[in-house]
Structure formats: C-alpha cells, structure tokens
C-alpha cells in the first residue's frame, strides 16, 4: 500500500491554550507523570556520572599518562570526544537560531529541547580540553588573558586560543538564549502551580514576568538579535574547531575543506542526537500532538541532507590528498583507508555516515520511529569514528617512519567518554523533570497563527498521516 503524504499541520489534535499548558506544564507540576522510563534514564546517568567522577579523580591524581595518548599521538580520545560533543551541540543552535531566521515555525516545538542539549553537550565537551591540560588549575594563565605576575599572555595567533574564546562564547550565548526563552514559561508555571513552594521558586526565577506588551516588544527584539548573533557564532565555532586540524602541516590535518565539512558534520550528528532524545520523550509523555510525525520527517530530511554534505567532504579529502601530489598526504590517505591498523574504523564510518542515512530517502523509514532511532544511533557512532579517523590516525604515521607509533586507547579513555554520556543523560533527565521541555509561549503563538491563517479548523484529530492538499 502506498504511503499517503504527510500534511504540514504542526500541532495535531483539538488544541487550545489550556491544553497546551496542561500537556507541557504538567510534566513539572504533576511529578507522577514520571514513571519507570525516567528513573531508568536517571539511574543510567548517575552511574555514568560516577564513572566520570572516578575517571577525573584518578586522572588528576595520576596524570594524563593513564590515557593512551603519547607522542606522536598527543591528541586522541580527549580531542575526539571534545569535537564530537561540540558538534552535537550545534543542532540546538541551528534549530533555535537559524530556523528562526528562516521562519521555519515547526522549530517551535523542538527548540527548547535542542537548546538544552546544546548546553549540556558543550559542558561535556569543555571538560576534555581542560582535563587534557593535566592540571587545569595551572593552565589558567595560558587559557585566559589576565594580567598575571609572570607577565605572560596567551598566544593569540594559535587556533587553540581561538577555540577557548569560541567555545566559551558559544556556551555563554547559548545559555543566555535558553534562559531568556525560559522566563515567560516560568511565569506560566508560577501561575499554574498549586503548591506554595513551586509557586515561590518559579516566582523568583520568572523575575516577575507579567506579559506586558512593552516587555514582549523588547523581548522579541532581543530574541531576534540573539538569533542573528548566534547564527554566525555557531558557524564560527565549528569552523574554529576545524582550524585546529585544517591549519597544521601534519598530513591529513592540512585540508581547506574542513570548515564547511565539520559544520555540516556537526549538524548531522546534532540532529541525530535531537531525535535520539525526542523520540522516546514524545512517546513516554504523550507529546505526539506537539512533536508530530511531520517534525520527525523534517528532522530526518535535514539529517540526510547534511549527511550528503559530509559524504562530499570525504570524497574531497581523498581528492585533495591525490591532487596535492604530496607523497606523505597520499600515504596517509591510504593508511587511513586500506592498509592501516584502523582501516576497519574507516569502513564502519562509511557504513554509518554515508550508507545508513540513505534509508531516509524512503518515506517509510522516515516515519517509522524504530528505523529513525536506529539510523540516528548509527550516525552518532559514525560521527565519533570520523573524528577518531581524523585525529589519532593522522598522528600515528607522520613524516618520519622511525617516529611512527601505534595508538591504543586505555580503560580510562573509555571510562571518561562513557562517563560524559552518563553526565549528559543525568542533565537531560533533570531537565525533562524540572523545566518545560517545549517552549509554551511559542507554541501558543504558533497555535494562534495557525488558527488565524485557517479560520475553519484545518487541524485533524489524531496524528496518523493524512492526505495533503498539495
């Protein structure tokens, strides 16, 4: 049986402002809505966070020798994980800022979620370079420009310094964007709360928001400007991260295609992560009327599009290695792909990042949550492998064969990585339980726009695919 096309209805069911409030705010006000699924996520997260804590303490006690990196492979899991996490965060900013500027109103039901993911992912990312310094508390003077008694300043010509500024600015701006989006929703929670303690807490954090038109007027100006500022910011952050590799002379770290290809890869991995969390949440908490199958379909299409850009990047990498006529580059290209010890990682990466997303060409695969979920997991794995292939693999075999040295990760490399995944899950679990997962006021705005655009209700009950007019 042929599938019917999905219509573009962004909110399904018979909704009004009150039902939107109830669907979203009750996640916080009625704690009984959190069942076993939440506790499983939280427990997994807390166990992971413990592993992260132990890994960090052992690292600080023993030094970074507990990790597998050693010259010439000075950068390995720590930087792989840093780039992976930062990339995941980028989908949040893309959804909240770039789709806002492009007037893609379907973003309203996923932006809060994706922004939270951005902030938590950047928190995980930031840990790795900090801990890679070995003793972060003495690294301060070469990371941040402050007049110190040694009369030293950071080296501003280095891409590593650019990274420090890019990532810290990105974290600050994402946090601001998220918090100002939350203020009007805190006011909703304050007004709907029945318990005095909840009312007091949300009363404080809502800053006395009263929905005045003059406030909304300036609020919208500030929100739009933040979106305009975040758009070049998010592109600059991953561009600068890619400069760490693009601007060096190490074979394999000397490719001008890295900035656009890293940015596309970041969005690719980020959308996979948004879907990884959005799919279970919308089914556990019955939010399928707000995050509809159409949203999942759109996100799957963006994943496919960015996946194709990434595939183009892989082709260009090989082309540049050949076209440069540089024997070291060409040898590295072969070493990575065919006869190197980690060639299997490259094959897996191609399967996960290029082959798997092609299933999204088939409408059935974009609508079946199971296939979407599986493909997203493969994409997350593939993007991690991509950074693994680029970072340690380029360093193990360099200009001098006598300096070649194989890289093997240790238990603590994996411990730290799995630990941050746990930490991320803990933060997501707390976010789902204590903050509104969908932007309430933007959903009301969207509902109002839908209703004024179609005075006769064009909103179909249920969320099965229904025939479109087009």
């Amino acid at each position, binding site marked *: 049986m042929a599938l019917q096309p999905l219509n573009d209805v962004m909110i399904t069911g018979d909704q*009004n*402002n*009150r039902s939107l*409030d109830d669907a979203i705010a009750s996640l916080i006000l009625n704690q009984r809505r959190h069942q076993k699924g939440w506790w499983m996520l939280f427990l997994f997260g807390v166990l992971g966070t413990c592993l992260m804590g132990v890994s960090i303490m052992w690292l600080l006690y023993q030094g970074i020798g507990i990790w597998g990196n050693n010259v010439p492979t000075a950068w390995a899991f720590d930087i792989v994980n840093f780039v992976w996490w930062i990339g995941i965060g980028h989908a949040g900013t893309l959804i909240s800022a770039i789709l806002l500027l492009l007037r893609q109103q379907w973003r309203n039901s996923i932006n809060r979620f994706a922004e939270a993911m951005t902030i938590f992912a950047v928190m995980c990312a930031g840990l790795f370079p900090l801990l890679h310094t070995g003793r972060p508390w003495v690294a301060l003077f070469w990371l941040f*420009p402050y007049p110190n008694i040694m*009369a*030293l*300043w*950071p*080296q*501003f*010509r280095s891409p590593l*310094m*650019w990274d420090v*500024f*890019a990532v810290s*600015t990105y974290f*600050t*701006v994402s946090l*601001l*964007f998220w*918090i*100002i989006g939350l203020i*009007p929703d805190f006011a*909703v929670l*304050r*007004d*709907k709360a029945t318990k005095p303690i909840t009312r007091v807490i949300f*009363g*404080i954090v809502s*800053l*006395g*928001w*009263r*929905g*005045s*038109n*003059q*406030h*909304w*007027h*300036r*609020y919208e*100006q*500030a929100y739009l*400007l*933040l979106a305009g*500022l*975040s758009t*070049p*910011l998010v592109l*600059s952050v991953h561009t*600068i991260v890619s*400069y760490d590799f693009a601007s060096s002379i190490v074979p394999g770290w000397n490719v001008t295609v890295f900035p656009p290809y890293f940015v596309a890869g970041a969005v690719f991995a980020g959308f996979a992560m948004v879907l990884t969390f959005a799919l279970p949440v919308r089914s556990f908490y019955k939010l399928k009327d707000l995050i509809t199958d159409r949203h999942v379909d759109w996100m799957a299409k963006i994943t496919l599009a960015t996946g194709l850009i990434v595939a183009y990047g892989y082709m260009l990498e090989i082309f540049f290695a050949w076209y440069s006529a540089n024997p070291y580059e060409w040898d590295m290209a072969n070493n990575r792909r065919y006869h190197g010890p980690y060639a299997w990682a490259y094959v897996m990466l191609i399967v996960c990042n290029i082959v798997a997303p092609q299933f999204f060409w088939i409408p059935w695969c974009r609508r079946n949550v199971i296939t979407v979920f599986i493909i997203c997991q493969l994409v997350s794995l593939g993007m991690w492998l991509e950074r693994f292939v680029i970072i340690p693999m380029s360093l193990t075999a360099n200009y001098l064969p006598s300096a070649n040295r194989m890289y093997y990760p240790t238990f603590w490399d994996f411990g730290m990585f799995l630990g941050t995944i746990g930490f991320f899950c803990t933060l997501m679990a707390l976010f789902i339980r204590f903050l509104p997962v969908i932007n309430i*006021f*933007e959903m*009301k*705005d969207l509902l*109002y726009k839908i209703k*004024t655009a179609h005075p006769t209700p064009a909103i179909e009950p249920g969320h099965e695919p229904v025939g479109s007019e087009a």
Partner: protein
Amino acid sequence: MSGHAASDPVGPYGLVAEFESPQELLEAAEKAKLAGYKKMDAYSPFPIHGLSDAIGFRDAKVPFMVFLGGLTGVACGFTLIWYTATIDYPLNVGGKPFNSLPSYIPISFECTVLFSALTAVFGMLALNKLPKPYHAIFNTPGFERCSQDRFFLAIEAEDPVYDSQVTRDFLAALHPVAVNEVEK
C-alpha cells in the same frame, strides 16, 4: 477629569479589562488609543504582532544598545590581542609578523558576539525593569490566567484623560469578560 498624580501612593493603579482572544484585545487597544488614552499597557501570554502599534508603543533602544555592545566587543577584543601580541609580549612564532592581522579576526569576532549578546539580554531586562517581583497589575482578579489564556488591557490612573467612571464605561463597551479597578 484629571487623573491621580503619579506620586499618589494610595489611589487606584488603573482599570483593567479582561478579554478572551487576541483579536478582541487588539481591537480594544486600537479603540483606546483613538479615545486618547496614552498611559496604557496590554498583557498577553505570548507576543501579539501589531499590538505595539495598537497601543502606540515604539521603542528601538535594544537594537541600538546591541550595536554599541558589538562595537565595544570588537574594540576590546582587538585591542587586547594587538597590545599583548605586539607591545607587551611580542613573541616570534614561525617568523610571522608581530602584528599578524588575519589571526586576530576569530577572537575579535567572538568578543563582538559575546558583548552584543550580553547587551541584548541584560539591556532588555534593564529596560523592562526586571526583575520586579511586585507590580500593581498582579492585584487584578484572575490575572494568573494572563500567562495562560486570557488577554488584559490596563488603562492607568496616571493617564491625563483617566476618569474612573468614564473609563470604566468605555472599557465595558468593548465587551470584555470583566472590568476591574486595581489598587496599587
């Protein structure tokens, strides 16, 4: 016909009408502006386009402040790098000139974004005089629905043409759900 003095600590804050839909609020605000009211404000659960025009509110301070914030950011970022890299701590790296402008761009750009974003958020909060835990409008009966599904129009007692009876009749003619006089 004169309203209460701004300094009057007792008198009422104003009259507040409650509406069921954004369209009704827009029409009411439009009519109140035509009736000559100036000191008024509308309250809604989400931003409504055209409402600022309807109540006659214009303001472009936030974008202007953000622009100045951005200029400050780029100036601070650039000056910091230029001063440390060429004057206070010149260091020869790979034979590059001390004043190597292209490599100053990323950090100057990040500082521009950082300063403008901070200005946008804190400037917006400052102009809106937030945080403000107490405001007279919260005394309106049923105002907790303002963040949920009701729309309010407040005409303040400070308005020169405010008169408690005339204004009440005017608001009542707009078919609101309720009209209340609100204490400060």
